[in-house]
């Protein structure tokens, strides 16, 4: 069994003035992920390494970090796919560091909440207590499906050059989610969101670098969503603003036919 040289950027804001680099020799095994390597180092070599993780299967989005210079999920990146014998791990860019590889995602989630990532209906009572099941046609689902795969890992925001300079910019994740709900035929809150996006640090600050789509581990294309969003903002029209798409109903929930 050969070793892999695991390099971890360490930083404790309470004790360190600047980040320091630590090297660990970790035994390599087949199928080993970067998260496995980090956990080995933490469990057997240095208990003080701080990292965030949970599901270990690219579902929770907790273990986002910069691996060999590119934002990736540690649990979704195998050591073997990186080539060479050296793995460099650093915290994600564009986020404050809590400690070592753990970044503060508070502003990220705040921006996500800002775009109202939920279905809005004109009729508040209907929204609280739907009288029937909301139905989407397959072709309507097709338009938004990829954006529903977002796991909010923050990799896209970490790679975005605009976020690096403009801290108020909503960022690719929030904008892609805004598109996901605006393009959803069951939603009637598009105009509210368009109003929010059409300001100095909104959708127009995206310069289409495309790095968000490049790094997304779930195959979402936020850059595409943002460009489509720009079209709606420019025209001032949210699709389905008359709620036409949402008029497609099935039978009321209580009387739905049983199989």
């Amino acid at each position, binding site marked *: 069994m050969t070793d892999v040289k695991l390099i971890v950027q360490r930083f404790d804001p309470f004790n360190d003035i600047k980040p320091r680099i630590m090297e660990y020799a970790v035994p390599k095994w087949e199928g080993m992920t970067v998260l496995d390597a980090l956990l080995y180092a933490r469990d057997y070599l240095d208990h003080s390494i701080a990292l965030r993780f949970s599901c270990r299967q690219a579902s929770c989005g907790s273990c986002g970090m910069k691996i060999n210079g590119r934002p990736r999920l540690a649990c979704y990146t195998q050591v073997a796919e990186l080539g060479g014998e050296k793995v460099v791990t650093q915290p994600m860019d564009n986020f404050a560091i809590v400690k070592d590889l753990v970044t503060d995602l508070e502003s990220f989630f705040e921006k996500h909440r800002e775009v109202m990532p939920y279905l809005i209906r004109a009729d508040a009572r209907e929204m609280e207590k739907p009288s029937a099941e909301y139905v989407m046609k397959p072709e309507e689902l097709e338009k938004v499906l990829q954006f529903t795969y977002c796991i909010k890992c923050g990799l896209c925001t970490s790679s975005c050059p*605009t976020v690096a*300079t*403009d*801290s*108020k*910019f909503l960022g690719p994740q929030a904008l892609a989610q805004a598109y996901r709900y605006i393009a959803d035929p069951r939603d009637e809150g598009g105009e509210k969101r368009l109003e929010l996006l*059409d*300001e*100095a*640090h*909104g959708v*127009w*600050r995206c310069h289409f670098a495309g790095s968000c789509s490049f790094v997304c581990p779930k195959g979402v294309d936020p850059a595409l969503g943002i460009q489509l969003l720009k079209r709606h*903002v*420019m025209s*001032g029209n949210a699709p389905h603003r008359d709620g036409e798409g949402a008029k497609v109903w099935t039978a009321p929930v209580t009387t739905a036919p049983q199989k």
Partner: protein
Amino acid sequence: MKESRLMLVQYATAVAAVALVSVHLIMQGVIYPYATAISFNNILSIYSNGFYAIFLEALLVVVLVHGFNGVRIILSEFRQTKPWTSWVDAATVLAIIITVAYGTRTVILAVFVGAPA
């Protein structure tokens, strides 16, 4: 003004600038001999053509609006405070007004006053 309107102006002036600059380069490089295209007397004769004077004025406005609006966008990403944004917006409008006025003055002088005695 809403950001979408400002971006619409940015895109429209970009398209217009491509068309106007292309015509301008063709005029300077093909129709007029390039070697004498920017000589003083040649320029005065160009301005004596009313259509071309209007064309150059349009080019001036389009390029300045596009350029300064572009600088505004870059500067607005530089800092995010409200006073900074307001200052950048005001400075952009002022810069456009001053430079367009100065350029227009040149066009008017060339068209109506001509060469100095």
